[in-house]
């Protein structure tokens, strides 16, 4: 099975707002973030706060490491069989993520935030060694 990632240059023109939510939402599709969530986000002494379905959330804007870009992929046609080739389209890009915790100020103990460490370590481990 081969996975093709396809993109046209338009996808890189717009940058989207990505929110990492602290709960699983059993749905895959569009959400009216700009209507319900974005206008209610507040910035204060404890960072960002918002209420989602009555739950108090604490958030933090996380910039992706330099030279990295986030991409949003969409599969328009689901594969019919397991070994069929798959086509994923880049529909949007992002440079930062709004990371949310439920009633807990985001910090380095959060797996998602800590996972960013790997980027520097991977760089050190896997970048080609220069001959001297």
């Amino acid at each position, binding site marked *: 099975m081969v*996975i093709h990632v396809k993109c046209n240059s338009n996808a890189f023109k717009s940058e989207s707002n990505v929110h990492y939510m*602290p*709960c*699983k*939402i*059993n*749905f895959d599709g569009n*959400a*009216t973030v*700009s*209507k*319900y*969530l974005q*206008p*209610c986000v*507040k910035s204060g002494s404890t960072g960002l706060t918002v*209420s*989602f*379905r*009555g*739950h*108090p959330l604490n958030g933090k804007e996380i910039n992706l490491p330099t030279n990295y870009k986030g991409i949003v992929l969409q599969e328009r046609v689901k594969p019919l069989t397991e070994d069929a080739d*798959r086509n*994923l389209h880049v529909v949007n890009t992002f440079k930062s993520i709004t990371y949310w915790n*439920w*009633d*807990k100020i985001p910090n380095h103990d959060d*797996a*998602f935030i*800590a*996972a960013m*460490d*790997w980027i520097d370590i991977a760089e050190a481990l896997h970048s080609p060694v220069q001959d001297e």
Partner: protein
Amino acid sequence: MDINENIEHIVKSNVDLEKCLTNRDSKDNITFGSGVKFSDPCIVGIDEAGRGPVLGPMVYGLCYYPLGKESIFNDLGCADSKTLTDEKRKDIFQKMCSDDVGWIVEALSPTFISNNMLLRSKYSLNQIAQDSTVGLLNKIISMGINIAEVYVDTVGPPEKYQDKLKSIFPEFKIVVAKKADSLYPVVSAASICAKVSRDTALTTWVFTEDFEVSLEEIGSGYPNDPVTKKFLKGNFDKIFGFPQLVRFSWSTADKILEDESFCTEWEDVEEGASEKTPNILGFFKKDPRKKEHTKHEFFKKRKLMNTENL
């Protein structure tokens, strides 16, 4: 009479009240009052409005005036606040914005109520109610009001609540009673402040969300009001639920969410439930999992793994 520095917003009329409730972030709590001060010992009444509704703030009203000046209430005519029309209540509220009687109100936003009831460690509605009552008393104490007697209306068992308040304020005579608003004119007056503030908060509500709903469409906020029911059903989003006007933690709202929204799964907060004490014999057994190739702690902690499939 001097303007008080302890109250953020001084309200001197129905118009002031509307202004003060409109020009703010409706997701936040707000405290406002008349700022009136007395040097003589005062009688204090406290009542709430809007505990039942699924929409809008829950409001605590506190009214105070010097002992022995009860006669002013004969002129106000607020003996039984529950039987009054909205207009009549507004009328009395306007009269209460004089220097003969003082009052202070705290409106607790629906977002504040839902958020507190949905914390990792829950904060009950009764505790919220008690904290607001104690907060209002402390506010007028810091204004220099000399409190002698306090009358409080309650929906729960009065004895326990009365003991609790007495332990916080042992120096005052405190009476907690059911239906105190029809027994004590000072509580009745407090109830008018609370009720008028709650009604005004609902009619001046500013949606933070990108929402266009006329305020007649929201109804009274009571769960059995057909207009409110229609508003809840009609302005429902399968992902976000409702706008911040709604108390998500109320059973009416919660039921619609449960039945009609996309299900959400939150982190389990019950501590220690998953970790059983291991059986001592288990230490001598071979652990089949140990043979598997396990990832380094670094990756486990960060929930990083290789992906071969999408």
